[in-house]
């Protein structure tokens, strides 16, 4: 956590987080996929700056290394060999990592207060010190980004170098990229640059070039320029219309306060019922109950009559008892 006073959203928190210092411009990282050469300098820079040293992976027949994001690899270049219908082969390379959504599913799902925060500049940061390791952020994220470390059971992902940005520097990956494929600045500026790049690409024949800044998650603070914006799925499964899953919405949404209220109301109703209607008092023991079982064997009428009359098990059990002594005290046709 780098600035504890410009937090615009905080996980599992129902009151406003501290945000008076919010006169901050929204930032964005722009990744121009068409300029990426797949050198992985950004992966190395990320390791260096963040002091991460993932295990050395293995080769499995593609250039992806490591194979997937991990708790110690917050960004991974994903390589796709795409064959178009007219037989052209395209080598698509996408730098994968947290998108820093304006409406982050991870933060929505997180049950630990303050373990995920969103700064006024748009960066979504994990305060892993408060992480409990439940994995709800993975359940909530529409991009499958967070990873839980097997070493400490805490969740990790790209911070957009919130520590560097806070000190006025660009993220490490941006600084190191040799082709300027990754750029960083205010979201407004980055959108303007992206427009320009899309114009260039269109002029060069990529009719479907476009910006990836998906509205379903309120826009993102990591954006792509794609030559095939009509089909983002081509880029190693980048979702076309990402949004917080309706299942997550139903799970974390209005159902929770409603269910909580019903639990409370049920308990309260019990209290009210008890003080208004009262308990079902323990029925008094009939005199015949007090006599040893040996003497009760001759109580012939007992079973026959109690089955026939549904009212026979009265509120006051002494009344419904049919021992001879009882019958004398309560003649038939009495107060029943």
């Amino acid at each position, binding site marked *: 956590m780098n600035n504890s006073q410009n937090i615009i959203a905080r996980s*599992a928190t129902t009151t406003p987080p501290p945000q008076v210092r919010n006169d901050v411009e929204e930032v964005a990282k722009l990744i121009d996929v068409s300029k990426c050469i797949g050198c992985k300098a950004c992966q190395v820079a990320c390791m260096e700056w963040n002091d991460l040293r993932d295990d050395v992976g293995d080769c499995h027949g593609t250039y992806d290394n490591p194979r997937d994001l991990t708790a110690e690899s917050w960004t991974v270049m994903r390589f796709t060999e795409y064959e178009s219908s007219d037989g052209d082969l395209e080598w698509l390379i996408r730098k994968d990592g947290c998108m820093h959504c304006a409406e982050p599913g991870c933060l929505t799902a997180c049950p630990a207060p303050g373990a995920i925060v969103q700064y006024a500049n748009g960066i979504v940061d994990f305060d892993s010190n408060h992480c409990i*390791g439940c994995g709800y952020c993975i359940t909530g994220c529409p991009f499958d980004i967070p990873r839980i470390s097997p070493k400490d059971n805490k969740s990790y992902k790209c911070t957009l170098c919130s520590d560097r940005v806070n000190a006025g520097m660009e993220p490490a990956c941006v600084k190191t990229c040799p082709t300027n494929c990754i750029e960083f600045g205010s979201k407004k500026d980055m959108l303007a640059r992206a427009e320009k790049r899309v114009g260039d690409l269109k002029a060069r024949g990529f009719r479907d070039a476009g910006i990836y800044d998906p509205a379903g998650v309120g826009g993102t603070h990591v954006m792509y320029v794609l030559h095939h914006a009509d089909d983002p799925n081509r880029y190693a499964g980048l979702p076309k219309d990402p949004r917080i*899953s309706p*299942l997550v919405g139903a799970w974390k949404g209005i159902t929770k306060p409603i*269910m909580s209220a019903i639990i409370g109301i049920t308990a309260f109703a019990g209290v009210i019922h008890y003080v208004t209607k009262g308990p079902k008092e323990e029925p008094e023991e009939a005199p015949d109950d007090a006599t040893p079982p040996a003497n009760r064997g001759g109580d012939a009428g007992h079973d026959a009559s109690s089955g026939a009359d*549904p009212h026979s098990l009265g*509120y006051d*059990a002494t009344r419904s008892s049919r021992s001879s002594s009882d019958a004398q005290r309560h003649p038939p046709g009495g107060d029943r």
Partner: protein
Amino acid sequence: MKTSHNRLQRYSPLDRANHWTMAMAFLLLALSGLAFFHPAFFFLTHTLGGPVWARILHPFIGVVLVLLFYAMAVRHVRNNLLGGNDVQWMRQIGDVLNNRDDKLPEIGKYNPGQKLVYWALVVSIAVLLISGVIMWRPWFAGYFPIPLIRFASLLHALSAFVAIVTIVVHIYAALWVKGSVRAMTRGWVTRAWARHHHGLWAREKEENERRERH
């Protein structure tokens, strides 16, 4: 305490030990689970030694509950099938709630309300187990696709809600009907209690007694 001149045995020592172990497990599960359920209850993580411990322990306690619960449930299926005067009893739910017990028909070992509690828990605890395993990190969740984990999380929260409301009703009923708690703490009820609240069961028990004597 065995059956005697004015008492009937309702629960064996094993039944009682199982019931109260389950009660403690359920309480810990409900408190730790609610802590993740909504921020208003997050402080309840301290019932299991803090947020991280609560997250770690909750599923293990869940498995303990499941084992105890179904060990109990299979032995009580027969007594929890609807039948006898159950429908009539349900029609007269107003009399039940207003303590007009003298108007109620005789019922067996469990009344329809108790049977409903039984079946609600049989179903909700099964759903809690299945969905809980799917959500369980770091052990199992990694084997399931994320959309399924989302669905399981929703189901787990819903079924936990059903189970908790059911248990609130169950606890209230026990406090409301005097003489019931003792059935589960000491094992016996008075004959008057049995005849009053569970006439068919009392008659069956007493008939068995008579047969044994002859």
